[in-house]
């Protein structure tokens, strides 16, 4: 099966190359047509290679204004203005400055030398300090996101944190423990398994403790929410260590408000829906409009305001992009008797005149 597919792909590539060689005549075209018609597998393999090959015509711009006596070295076009921010993650010349104009001959060697020098220096530094760092090293970092923004943070222990809108996170990772602080906002943690080093999120007077797991912590004025999608998380009051800790297995949604912890067990799929903000959208199932609006307001500068509190109890369902509150409001106007006014910057929702049903 697999070999079959690979052979078909090789055949398709040969047809493509032969046609590309020029001198292609009707007889050959007919032969290609016959081969393509033999099975759908032939056709889709050929279409796929052809589509990408056509796409490679874009590479032509790399030659613009430059004559190449030789083919440039790999990564040599890093300096090309065509790529400025895009090739940044290739790792090829990560340490070389990338703001130069595209000067093919000299620019080509310089980043290479610079990166060689940088990696040599790095190697020496690492060897010299490795032993000492092993014992005392603490990796620290602080991150903040703006309203509506999102940031993925890769921690030195292999864990990652995804910061939601208007959030703040700091980290101190030592050999003994991993301490994270979330003074405000929301973060999703994907924790690298390391039983010897507990991973503790300090938030709002609580410790959220994980070993190797995935969970989300949201810290807002009104309280704290922890959603666990994998493994086990332990929630403990930092202020009162006497209080029993609460164990949260995957599928838990814990709400902490005024010192009280309530835990709800939901199917995993449902728990994951709390995390869709990482992909820029939100899922509602019969959610009160008041809650839905709050969700959008966490991400957008132009707040949605309910002029009539009774609107808050309308139920909303569906998937919505968080950055498209205007689209959400438009939809609300279509399905509900509401009127939106965004004259003042904020979007004020009020009941459409004459729609009072009580």
């Amino acid at each position, binding site marked *: 099966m697999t070999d079959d597919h690979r052979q078909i792909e090789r055949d398709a590539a040969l047809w493509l190359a032969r046609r590309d060689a020029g001198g292609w005549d009707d007889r050959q075209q007919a032969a290609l047509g016959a081969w393509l018609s033999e099975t759908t597998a032939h056709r*889709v393999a050929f279409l796929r290679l052809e589509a990408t090959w056509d796409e490679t015509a874009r590479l032509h711009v790399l030659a613009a204004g430059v004559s190449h006596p030789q083919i440039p070295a790999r990564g040599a076009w890093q300096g090309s203005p065509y790529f400025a921010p895009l090739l940044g993650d290739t790792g090829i010349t990560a340490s070389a400055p990338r703001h130069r104009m595209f000067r093919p001959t000299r620019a080509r060697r310089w980043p290479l030398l610079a990166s060689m020098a940088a990696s040599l220096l790095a190697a020496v530094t690492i060897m010299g300090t490795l032993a000492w760092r092993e014992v005392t090293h603490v990796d620290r*970092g602080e991150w903040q996101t703006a309203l509506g923004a*999102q940031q*993925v943070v*890769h921690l030195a222990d292999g864990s990652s944190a995804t910061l939601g809108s208007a959030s703040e996170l700091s980290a101190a990772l030592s050999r003994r423990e991993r301490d994270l602080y979330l003074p405000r906002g929301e973060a999703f943690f994907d924790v690298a398994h390391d039983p010897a080093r507990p991973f503790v999120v300090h938030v709002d007077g609580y410790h959220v403790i994980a070993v190797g797991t995935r969970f989300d912590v949201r810290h807002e004025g009104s309280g704290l929410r922890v959603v666990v999608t994998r493994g086990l998380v332990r929630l403990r009051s930092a202020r009162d260590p006497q209080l029993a800790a609460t164990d949260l297995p995957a599928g838990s949604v814990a709400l902490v408000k005024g010192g009280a912890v309530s835990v709800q067990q939901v199917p995993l799929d449902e728990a994951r829906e709390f995390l869709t903000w*990482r992909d820029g959208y939100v899922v509602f199932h019969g959610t009160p409009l008041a809650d839905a609006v709050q969700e959008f307001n966490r991400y957008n500068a132009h707040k949605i305001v309910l002029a009539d509190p009774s609107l808050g109890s309308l139920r909303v369902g569906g998937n919505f992009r968080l950055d498209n509150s205007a689209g959400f409001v438009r939809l609300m106007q279509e399905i509900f008797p509401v009127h939106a006014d965004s004259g003042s910057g904020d979007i004020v929702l009020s009941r459409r005149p004459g729609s009072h049903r009580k």
Partner: protein
Amino acid sequence: MGESVDAWFVRDILAHEAALMRFLHRNWRDHDEVSDLRQEIYVRVYESATRKFPDSPKSFLFTTARNLLTDRVRRQRIVSITAVGDLEQLHVLKDELEPDRWFSGREALARLARALDRLPDRCREVVWLRRVEDLPQKEIARRLGISEKTVEKHIAKGSRLMADHFHGIIDRDIPPGDRQGAHARIRKPT
């Protein structure tokens, strides 16, 4: 007749190959089988479109993919739970939310340049001369002192590798969920 199935397939299906490959890599443990799965999915989608174009090509593509994976798991007599990530979930939504288009011009160019850099030396040289400098195959053979047949073989190989590399296998080591937003690294103490 409306538009041809070929054109539809290139525009509305192949455009999602990067997302499809991520989906397959995430949900099928044996990565060697992924390109085989992809081809089979394409065959199913194409044949179905010859009868009727689906309303939503992307959803149809991922539904087909999901069904194929489920079939495959059932066919394996001993069902191994680890063979698939999460059969229920299958992360479809996330992949379906990827941009539904061919890459933007600049992004495509960057990906192509990266894909080109991953070709073996001779192959890269040939593809460069053909696609960047626009030399005919015959002229490339002359310039490199190799036979035209050999140039043709390099083009064939290049077209296969470029297709693989262009469509996002490059990024497969990045864990899911990490592709959006800026990447930051912890600051080293000074």
